[in-house]
C-alpha cells in the first residue's frame, strides 16, 4: 500500500486539519470530538443541516459545508460512521433555533449513531428530523437486506435541502424537500479496481484484469455482480437502465444527471460515460436539465464511476440554481 499519509490512524484528523486551513473562510474545524461547522454557524432562525458518515468519500461531507448546503459535517473514521459524541455537539452548534435536519445515508452504523445523537439532542431541547438517503438501485431486494444504500443521491439531498434552508423554509418544509429528493433519485455504480483502506493496507477486493464489479457501494464493498470488462457505452447502459426503470422515467421528464468518479478515474472517462448517459436519456425523451460530472462522492482511490439521476420539478431546479458556496460546490457566490 502506498499512500500520501503519515500514521494510518491520523489520516482523518490530519486531513480535516488541512481542509480547515485551506477553507478557513468557509468552515471552523472542531478537533475533539471531530466535526466541522459553517463559519457563521449557528445561523439564527435558519434550519441547521447536519450530515456525516465514514471518511474516505471526500469531498462528501466536509466539502459541502457552507452557504446553501450543510451547516455541519461529521467525519467518522475511514469508512466508519461517526459516533454520537461527535454528532451531538455538531447538532447543538448549528441549531439556530429553527431545528436541525440530519441527512443520513442508510447504513446500519450511520442510522444507529445518528439515531442516538438525535435522541440526545432532543433531550437538550433541539428539534431534530432525520432523512434517510437510500438511492442505490444495486441493492435489489430491500426486504431481505438492510435496505438500499445511500450513495450519490446524498449530494443532491444536501444541496437541495441546503438551498431550501437557506431561503428560509422551516424544518418541516426543508425535511419535505429532502424527502422529495430521496424519493426521486436513484444511483448505480461500477468499480474497475478496488480501493485500499489505510488501516487495512490491502485492496478491499481483487478484480482480474478483465473483470469489473457492477453495483458497488462507496465503501470498497464488493458489488452485486462481477462481469467481464465492457466498453464505456456498454457499462453506461448497465448503470443507467436500472435507474430509469426504477424511477419509471418517461418522455418529458426533466432530470439532474450526475456522473461521479469514485476517486481514481480520469475526468476524461467520466465525460465519456456522461456523453452516453445523455444520449440514452434523450432516446427516451428525457431532458437532461442540469448536470454534475466529477468526483463528488468517492471511495478513496477506487477506479470506477457512478451515475445518479434525480427527477426535477420547477422548484427543485430553482433551488439547485440558487447560490451555493462550499469547498466543492460553488456558484452564484
Amino acid at each position, binding site marked *: 500500500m502506498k499512500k500520501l499519509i503519515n500514521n494510518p*490512524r491520523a489520516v482523518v484528523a490530519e486531513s480535516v486539519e488541512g481542509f480547515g486551513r485551506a477553507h478557513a473562510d468557509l468552515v471552523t474545524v472542531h478537533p475533539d*470530538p471531530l466535526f466541522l461547522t459553517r463559519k457563521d454557524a449557528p445561523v439564527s432562525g435558519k434550519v441547521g443541516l447536519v450530515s456525516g458518515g*465514514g471518511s474516505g468519500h471526500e469531498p462528501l461531507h466536509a466539502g459541502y459545508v457552507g452557504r446553501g448546503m450543510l451547516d455541519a459535517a461529521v467525519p*467518522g*473514521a*475511514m*469508512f*466508519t*460512521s*461517526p*459516533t*454520537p*459524541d461527535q454528532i451531538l455537539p455538531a447538532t447543538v452548534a448549528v441549531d439556530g433555533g429553527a431545528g436541525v435536519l440530519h441527512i443520513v445515508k442508510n*447504513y*446500519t*452504523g450511520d442510522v*444507529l*449513531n445518528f*439515531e*442516538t445523537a438525535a435522541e440526545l439532542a432532543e433531550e437538550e431541547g433541539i428539534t431534530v428530523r432525520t432523512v434517510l438517503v437510500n438511492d442505490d438501485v*444495486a*441493492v*435489489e*431486494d430491500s426486504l*431481505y*437486506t*438492510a435496505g438500499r*444504500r445511500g450513495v450519490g443521491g446524498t449530494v443532491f439531498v444536501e444541496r437541495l435541502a441546503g438551498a431550501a434552508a437557506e431561503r428560509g423554509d422551516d424544518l418541516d418544509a426543508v425535511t419535505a424537500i429532502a424527502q422529495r429528493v430521496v424519493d426521486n433519485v436513484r444511483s448505480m455504480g461500477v468499480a474497475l479496481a478496488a480501493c485500499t*483502506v489505510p*488501516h*487495512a493496507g*490491502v485492496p*478491499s*477486493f481483487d478484480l482480474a484484469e478483465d473483470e469489473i464489479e457492477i453495483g458497488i*457501494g462507496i*465503501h*470498497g*464493498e*464488493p458489488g*452485486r455482480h462481477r462481469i467481464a470488462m465492457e466498453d464505456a457505452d456498454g457499462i453506461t447502459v448497465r448503470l443507467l437502465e436500472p435507474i430509469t426503470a426504477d424511477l419509471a422515467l418517461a418522455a418529458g421528464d426533466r432530470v439532474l444527471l450526475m456522473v461521479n468518479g469514485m476517486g481514481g478515474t480520469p475526468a476524461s472517462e467520466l465525460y465519456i460515460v456522461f456523453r452516453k448517459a445523455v444520449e440514452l436519456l434523450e432516446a427516451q425523451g428525457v431532458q437532461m436539465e442540469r448536470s454534475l460530472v466529477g468526483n463528488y462522492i468517492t471511495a478513496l482511490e477506487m477506479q470506477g464511476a457512478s451515475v445518479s439521476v434525480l427527477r426535477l420539478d420547477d422548484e427543485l431546479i430553482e433551488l439547485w440554481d440558487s447560490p451555493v458556496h462550499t469547498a466543492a460546490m460553488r456558484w452564484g457566490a
Partner: protein
Amino acid sequence: MALTAQWAVAWLRGAAEVVAENRVLLIDLDRAIGDADHGENLDRGFSAVVAKLDAGPDPATPAEVLKGAAMTLMSSVGGAAGPLYGTAFLRAAKALGDAVEVGPDEAAAMLEAARDGVVARGKAEVGDKTMIDAWTPAAESARTAASAGASAEEVLSAAANAAQAGAVATEPLIARKGRASYLGERSANHRDPGAVSTAMILQAAAVAAGGVNL
C-alpha cells in the same frame, strides 16, 4: 475469580487484548463481506476502554465498569458495531444493578439483557448473519446452565462456547442485515465478523472469571 468489579475490569482488559491480537483477522472477515474496518473499529474502541480504566478511579461494582465501557465504546467505535456493543454493555450494566458480585442467575440475566439490547437496536433475527447469531445462543446457554445450577464461571463458559459455535454457524448463511446483506448470495461462505468478535469478547469474560479457556 468471583464476578466482582475486578472481574469486570479483567474482562474488558482481556477483551481488548484478544481484539488487538485478532485485529487483522476481523478486518479480513469484514473485507470479505463488508468494508474492512471491524477489527480496526473494535481495536480503537477497546484501546480507549483500557485507557479509561488505566486513568482510574477503580469502580466499585461490575455494573459501573460495564457502563463506563459502554459509553466509551459508543463514542469511539463508530460504525454498526459501536452502538450495538455500546447498547449491549449498557443493558448488561443495567441488568446488574448495584450488585457487588454477580451470581450465576445474574450472569445469565446480564447476557440476556445484552442480547435484547442488540436486538432492540439492530432489529436482526437469529439467522440474519449478525452478531445476534452469537449473542442469542450465548444468552440461552447461560440461562440453561444457570437453571441447571452451574456456577457463575460455568455460566460464562457455557455462553462463550455457545457464542463460538454460533459464530462458526454463520458461515453458510446469507446475510439479511448489516452491510453484508448488500452482497446477497455472495455473502455466504464467510463468517460474520461481528459474531466472531462477540465470541471473542464473551470468551474474555469467561477467561477473566477463571472459566475454562476454549
